[in-house]
């Protein structure tokens, strides 16, 4: 059993990982064809992976409702709104779930009039909090933070029409900050992070990193 539960997945990860690396260097059509097939399969597995997220979301709120935890009523609202939307999605403007997606209908209405305004508003609230933080907490506590704030102010002025209106210096300086020091630092970060991603991928392929196997004892 240990072989099936532990060794087999690790062998599979190793084999698919090595194939994933090798086909990059092989232009032969059989290798490229293999890449196409493996990618298409992985894409479909990704579609199923959505249900993992959906299940844990619904499960979490279900547990709250069942245990009557504080604020369980809101968890019920998640269920109600989910149910309402799923009804319109499956109804599919009258054609049902076993036909291609409809161009309009209740689900489109709910998307445009509920999901879009809520999503857009949620993040716009941050504009207010950033303003209050600007006044109360963005402090040049250290020389480093001072450099950060000065760069931020120049960029903020340079990127909007009023900056050019005050002086041509601001757009030019903002552009230079973005293109030279910012670019250089971001490149340095990118090189380091990419090496990190390569190293993590390698640990997965060689079975050194196994967190993807999930918890639970063997």
């Amino acid at each position, binding site marked *: 059993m240990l072989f099936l539960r532990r060794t087999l997945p690790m062998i599979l990860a190793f084999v698919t990982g090595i194939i994933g690396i090798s086909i990059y260097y*092989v*232009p*032969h059509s059989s290798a490229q064809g293999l890449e196409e097939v493996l990618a298409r399969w992985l894409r479909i597995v990704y579609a199923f992976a959505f249900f993992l997220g959906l299940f844990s*979301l619904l499960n979490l709120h279900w547990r709250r409702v069942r245990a009557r935890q504080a604020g369980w009523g809101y968890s019920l609202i998640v269920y109600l709104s989910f149910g309402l939307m799923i009804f319109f999605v499956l109804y599919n403007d009258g054609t049902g779930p076993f036909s291609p997606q409809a161009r309009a209908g209740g689900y489109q209405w709910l998307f445009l009039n509920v999901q879009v305004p809520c999503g857009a508003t949620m993040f716009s609230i941050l504009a207010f*909090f950033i303003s209050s933080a600007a006044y*109360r*907490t963005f402090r040049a506590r250290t020389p480093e933070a001072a450099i950060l704030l000065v760069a931020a102010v120049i960029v903020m002025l340079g990127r909007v029409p009023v900056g050019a209106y005050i002086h041509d210096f601001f757009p030019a300086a903002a552009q230079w900050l973005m293109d030279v020091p910012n670019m250089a630092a971001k490149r340095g970060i990118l090189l380091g992070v990419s*090496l990190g991603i390569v190293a993590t991928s390698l640990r997965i392929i060689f079975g050194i990193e196994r*967190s993807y196997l999930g*918890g639970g004892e063997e």
Partner: protein
Amino acid sequence: MYRSMIILLVLMGSATAWGLKAPVDFEAADTPNDAGTSVTLTWARDADAPAGAVYQVMVATDSNGPFYPAGEVSAAGSPMSEDPAAFGFWSDHDDRQYVHVEEFTRPGEDPTKLETDRPYYFRLEARLGEESVASGAAVEARAMENFFNWAKLNNFILAISFSAIILIYISIARRRELYIRRIAGLEALNEALGRATEMGKPVLFIHGLYGMDQPSTIAAVNILGRVAQRTAEYDTALRVANYDPVVLAVSQEVVKESYLEAGRPDAYSENNVFLAATEQFSYAATLQGMMVRERPATNIMMGYFFAESLLLAETGTTIGAIQIAGTDSYTQLPFFVTTCDYTLMGEELYAASAYLARESRLLGSLKGQDIGKAVLIAVLLLGTALASLDIPFLARMFSSY
């Protein structure tokens, strides 16, 4: 009037046609590094070719023709040095021209693609206006499938050697302790914990929003272990806020273990490691409320944060808490830097966790990456110096083709 102009044009045309020469040294061969879809033609560049001259490529499936057109190339452009991925870097490549042929057009039809492993016959005609001079006999070539993309050779070597370095260092780390420098953020962390003890107020540890499969969360849990050990020793209250149920379970385990190790299992209460909320802004709002009520002396925020970072850090500042943050979310780092007393930036978070956990695979991998960075630094310095001295060797090796 019109007639005289036409005569003039004809005269001009025939005059320049004198400069038109048949292509010399014409060769056709399979294009390297592809799946058998094209043939590459090369020929010596005619430095004296008149302006406006073009080479017309002709293809036939039989050596006797008929020949069909397959594109044209300006006599002035396309030196082989333009395509190092196919030809490499050789000094005479400025003197030869090339074209990759993938298809040809029969009159009145859509273009036909070249078939793999079938003989085709190629001819080249130098042309200017109506005048044209053809290369001699047609040259035969086949488009073949290739098994290795030589343009990616540098990538291949780099991938193999970097992989070897990482794996070797991980195996070294399993046998002996590897050195990494002390992380200033960890000392700041100790100070902050000490202050909470002096003030007799709680410490609040806030997890980021990612699940247990992310390196930032794993690092945060490792740091939480150390924090819990200290608070158990100092007898300071510790609250741990979680967003993800799995992270919650792991955190409870880690804190409990730390209290056990410190010999204070009695001081551990499961209620102090809690699920604050499962929606981003509710999470922030719950913790804001808690901070204002309980006034923790120290806030520790570790893991991957999104926009809620600002709400958390701002409230922390207004209640006068010492704040230590650590995240690999570069978009949120600016907010932490301006609101927190100390911030572990990006990879520093992983390094701090590897430093604390002393786990061989983390330490070894970190060390291997360090070697990778050292190589990149050396290449950057040396490569630029050499390139400035007109020795482009390193610069060519470290390019993507």
